[in-house]
């Protein structure tokens, strides 16, 4: 495999927060050519993970192997330049006093390449990203999307063994983000580049990833192919993080009688297998249908054109139902619901 993290931990001392465990015993294997996404809320440690892999920080415990070579463990850390990795920052971090050409050429100049080879490589990579006409401009003269392309070109020009991306699309507007997402994926396929991509955006994660992992409070909660994680979330946190709108997670009391175990959902009895007294039942908004008039009040209806989101109050919970197309449901009416599919979490 191309990247192997073994029991990786990182602890900080912060002035305001004291001891912070940013990463707790993370284990991860990423295959050659794989597009791997780490998804998590801000502050979950995903950027720290990236910094450790890039060599900008040293691990407190554990090991990092890149391309089969040990690059860091406690008390030993290969400097970034010897790791053959490239990093694209959320802020792009272009050198403001250099033209786009000089920005892209910078890593090559540092590595001692000669003028002719540098011009050839920069031309190659800028053609690939469609920025040949921008090479003479300074970063301040470029739009956000153009700066982004320059930053990606600078990362690719060195032909790194491992490409790291730290929320690279989060500063772009929605339309541009979607376009860059597609291009990024195409580029990665074309180059067969092992890529580690960090984001808090579940759409990016779902669309880009060959495999993804969900992080929470410095731990990896689940690893798998996007659709597999989407269908079988390991816990309510993952369930609530993937999908838009996210999965409805409801706490339900388990009832037992005559050898049967069940919970009550939308007035229906659902057979479950558990020895707990309480479980969490997760239902995706698209797996609920409105079966007709009933006893649950509709609190809010969001019409998005191609779909309708209906917020229904179920006792003390609020459930979101996603209906295809524009359905005539009015706020204040009462409906009955039915779950076509659900998942039980024992927590």
């Amino acid at each position, binding site marked *: 495999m191309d990247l192997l993290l073994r029991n990786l931990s990182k602890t900080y*001392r912060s*002035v305001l927060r004291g001891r912070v465990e940013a990463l707790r015993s993370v284990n991860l294997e990423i295959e050659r050519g794989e597009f791997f996404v780490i998804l998590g809320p801000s502050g979950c440690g995903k950027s720290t993970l990236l*910094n450790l892999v*890039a*060599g*900008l920080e040293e691990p407190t415990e554990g090991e990092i192997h890149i391309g089969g070579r040990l690059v860091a463990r406690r008390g030993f850390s290969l*400097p*970034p*330049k010897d790791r053959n*990795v*490239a*990093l694209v*920052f959320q*802020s*792009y*971090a*272009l*050198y*403001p*006093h250099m033209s786009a050409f000089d920005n892209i050429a*910078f*890593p090559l100049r*540092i*590595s001692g390449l000669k003028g002719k080879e540098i011009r050839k490589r920069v031309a190659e990579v800028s053609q690939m990203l469609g920025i040949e006409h921008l090479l003479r401009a*300074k*970063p*301040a*003269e*470029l739009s*956000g999307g153009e*700066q982004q392309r320059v930053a990606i070109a*600078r990362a690719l020009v*060195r032909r790194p063994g491992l490409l790291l991306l730290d929320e690279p699309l989060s*500063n772009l507007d929605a339309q541009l983000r979607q376009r860059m997402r597609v291009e990024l994926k195409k580029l990665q396929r074309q180059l067969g580049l092992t890529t580690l991509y960090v984001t808090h955006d579940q759409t990016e994660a779902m669309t880009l990833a060959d495999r993804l992992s969900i992080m929470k409070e410095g731990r990896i909660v689940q690893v798998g192919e996007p659709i597999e994680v989407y269908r079988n979330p390991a816990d309510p946190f993952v369930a609530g993080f993937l999908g838009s709108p996210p999965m409805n997670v409801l706490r339900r009391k388990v009832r037992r009688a005559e050898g049967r175990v069940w919970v009550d959902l939308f007035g229906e009895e659902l057979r479950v297998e558990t020895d707990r007294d309480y479980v969490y039942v997760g239902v995706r908004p698209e797996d609920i249908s409105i079966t007709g008039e009933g006893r649950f009040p509709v609190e809010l209806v969001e019409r998005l054109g191609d779909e309708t989101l209906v917020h229904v109050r179920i006792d003390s919970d609020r459930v979101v139902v996603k209906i295809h197309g524009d359905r005539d449901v009015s706020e204040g009416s009462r409906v009955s619901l039915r779950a076509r599919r659900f998942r039980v979490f024992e927590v």
Partner: protein
Amino acid sequence: MRRILLGIGAALSLGFALLPLVWTAMVSLAEHPDFLLRGGLSPTFDNYRDLFTSEDLHFVDYLKNSLLISSLSALLSLTASFLCAYALSRLSPFKALPLLLGVLGISLFPQISSAGFLYRIFSLTGLINTYPALVLPYTAWSLPLGVWLMHAYISSLPRDIDRSALVDGAGRLTILLRIILPLSLPGLASTYVLLFLFCFNEFLFALMFTVDYRTRTVPVGIALFEGLHGQIPWGHITAASLVSVLPVLILVLFLQGYIIRGLTGGAVKG
């Protein structure tokens, strides 16, 4: 009404700031300093001519000494400040703050507290009345100012730029020279002007560690101007004061382009 008030306010503050300068200029152009008593100003450039022709005044020597000593001290101090400030700005605030406060604390000692000691050192080493006797203490004495100013400036350069360069394969020295230095030019220019002024206006050390025109600087030189019969030569003093403003003015005008130019635009979006 508002505009009139604003105009009056502006005129008053301008007058308040410029009046001493205007008065100095008038005295320097007058034949006699008490020209108001003697029936008005009859402009003459005699005082200015004396400054550059009279051998006894040594004003040209003073000016040369001042320029050399101040520009060299400011340059040394700026170099050290730049290196120091870069390191401090990239340390965690936890570690950098005590150092910065220490630097500030040292600069709070009154100059006189070290003057006697310095005099002893310089007389033992035979440096009295040489350039190093002023360049060395000036460099040290202006260092805190330089460090604080440069630290504030370099801290405003995003750290992601450093990190990006590290990943691109650059070492710390390369980052310092090829990334941080060019980005710091505006900060360096304005800091240089302030350090230069700091040294150019210094009086106490210059008075103590110099003996004659070979190393004496302008402030001390002017203070020691003597009239023919012991009277105070106001004409020469005011003329010399005005002439010594010029180098500073030229320096500021020359560096203005750098001071104003904001180079960091577009480094980091947001």
